């Protein structure tokens, strides 16, 4: 027999099987999801959801990744107005001055820790903002890497910081300006531009299928 639990969707009570996620429970009771549903696998941040069990403190989760529990009071946060600055990635200066220009409110962080307690991915949001303040974008990028940009942190921030957008900028700076260049990549691109592989590809294009099968079935596989 299936066990059921009582949940409250936007205040309304439903009995649902206890093995469902919040998202599948909503669907089972009849919601046709449009907002608040995306990849259904914890990567896209569409389904940030607040819930409260009894009188405990409210929690934040991703609805697609969280099982229902008894007495769960649930409200979705399908969208939050983040501050997103417009910039040209090719023209910014990859140091702390860019943060001062674009997202100066990070310097108003009071260290209240609400961003951390409201991150459904359990990231150390406060720490990555600290790294951004210090101009350590490599560290900020690493600390924020698993951010799904749901905006739950920003929704509770008393300083009005849009943490996900700060981290987005830091990661782009890291990827473009700070990570070491790949010599083998540049070399290969040069070889291709020189046409070093044109003839070989051209010959593969013309070869009879049987000959290609032979080549494929006997190719060496790197260990």
């Amino acid at each position: 027999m299936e066990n059921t639990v009582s949940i409250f969707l936007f205040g309304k009570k439903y009995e649902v099987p206890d093995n469902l996620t919040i998202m599948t429970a909503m669907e089972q009771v009849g919601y046709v999801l449009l907002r608040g549903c995306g990849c259904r696998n914890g990567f896209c941040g569409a389904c940030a959801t607040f819930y409260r069990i009894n009188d405990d403190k409210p929690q934040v989760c991703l609805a697609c990744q969280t099982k229902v529990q008894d007495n769960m009071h649930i409200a979705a946060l399908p969208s939050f107005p983040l501050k997103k600055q417009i910039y040209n990635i090719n023209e910014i200066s990859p140091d702390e001055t860019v943060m001062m220009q674009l997202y100066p409110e990070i310097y108003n962080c009071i260290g209240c820790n609400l961003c951390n307690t409201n991150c459904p991915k359990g990231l150390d949001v406060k720490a990555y903002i600290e790294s951004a303040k210090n101009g350590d974008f490599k560290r900020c990028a690493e600390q924020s890497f698993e951010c799904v940009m749901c905006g739950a942190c920003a929704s509770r921030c008393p300083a009005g910081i849009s943490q996900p957008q700060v981290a987005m900028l830091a990661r782009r700076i890291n990827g473009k300006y700070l990570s070491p260049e790949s010599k083998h990549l540049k070399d290969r691109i040069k070889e291709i531009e020189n046409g070093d592989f044109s003839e070989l590809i051209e010959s593969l294009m013309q070869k009879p299928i049987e000959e290609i099968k032979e080549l494929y079935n006997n190719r060496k596989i790197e260990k």
Partner: protein
Amino acid sequence: MHHTYSEKIKESLKLVEAMREKNIMSEPNRMTSEQKNNLLASFHPDYNEKYFDTLKIGPNKGDRVPVELANILQSHSRIKPDSVDLTKPDFETDVLIIGGGGAGAVAAIEANNAGANVTIVTKLRMGDSNTIMAEGGIQAADKPNDSPEIHFLDAFGGGHFAAKRELLAKLVYNAPETILWLEKLGVEFDKDDSGDMSTTHGGGTSRKRMHAAKDYTGAEIMRTLRDEVINRQINVIEYTSAIELVLDKKGNAAGAILMNMESGKLMVAKAKTVIIATGGAGRMHYQGFPTSNHYGATADGLVLGYRAGAKLIYVETLQYHPTGAAYPNQILGSLVTEKARSLGAKLVNKKGEVFVHPLETRDVTTAAIIRECSACDNGVDVGDCRGAWLDTPMIEKIGGEGTIQKRIPAMLRMFQKYGIDIRKEPILVYPTLHYQNGGLDIDENCMSTSINNLFVAGEVAGGIHGKNRLMGNSLLDIIVFGRSAGANAASIAKQITLGELTLSHIEKYEEEMLSAGITTSAVAPKLLPDYTNNKKSTQK
């Protein structure tokens, strides 16, 4: 919250643990091409004829396609042509891009680069796509022991020698430059301090050419592309789907009928060129399989194109990713990245035996798992279904402690939520519907082979990979062909003066259905799956 494996499963788990050392040391044989062909014919879902139907009308009349796809291809339009006024478009644009995933975003960036006025419409949010869920990586032959032709050979063979060669050549030839293009936008890749890319194998690769950003490769690419689209202030209309293509009197693509997903309001978009970048079809749940795909993956682009007369290619071939989660039920069908096997995890049956080389191509590995769980009766019973073990603790033994946290943190997190520590315990997997190998037929310039000024990019395009795609060639494909589609659509747009618009193809299609004796209540594109009231047991 804590799930432990049942006693019965634990018995099998003990055998897996007992055999682990030995299994790590042994290198399973790779199958011969004959063995592979026999296995596929007997156990791969693409060969299960009862789930296929023959198209009765349209450019692919006579072709076999999945039953569920036949139903939406041979369906009614969501609109009556005379219910919209084509003489008063709601807006005009040079390039109209349908779909806001990876291919759509890339196409928008390149079309914008070329000076075109660009509009993206997307039925959900910008970035909602299978791209954002791609975990394992992106291929490029950029190491000294590798080359574009080796990449070509791997992909051509892996796709059963069916790829359109000119498309595949374009894919591999542009791969290294694609990686650099992404880096210049700020996409991060795993590399060592000297700048050497940390690359691994994928199933069916003969060189280690899988580039990755941990196991968030697609998410890292997609969020960067989205940020760039916003920075360029490209016009994006969210929660708006395309429900019909609009043609001009010459039969060329000239816009689309759009529908606001929240209000149902229709709009007419007039465009000099149109790019379909609507993605895949996992939410069609072919043959009742669960899927690793995004909520919006409902084959819309195939319907839009086919009704207007665009030819399809290889849509009878679907990719079932070998390792979807089989347990716990809450994550049934969720992707367990192939990178787990690239890093050393092997597939093991209920007796603890390795039954297939972990890096065969996806279709072969999938068929091997299905055989193991059915004919061989060696699957682990997990309640609603069966599964095989993916012995993830091998990764830590081979790569050292901390490898899982460093290289596949999303997988660690996904199972941790349910009390399973994949560093210490193996996981149960079964194939999940993952990718649409075929799609709309295109030429080298990404233009539909049937409709002028209609471009196609991303998963909705067919022919690039043949009948099976290798890991890491899809993220590559969306960038290479997205860029090409965007640049070409912008360039052609410059030469076009639009004339009168028409939806006459809808009536023509209705007539064809009638004379072919097709009676159906189906209306398409589907736009969203219906999971209300538990209509689909495979939902998750």
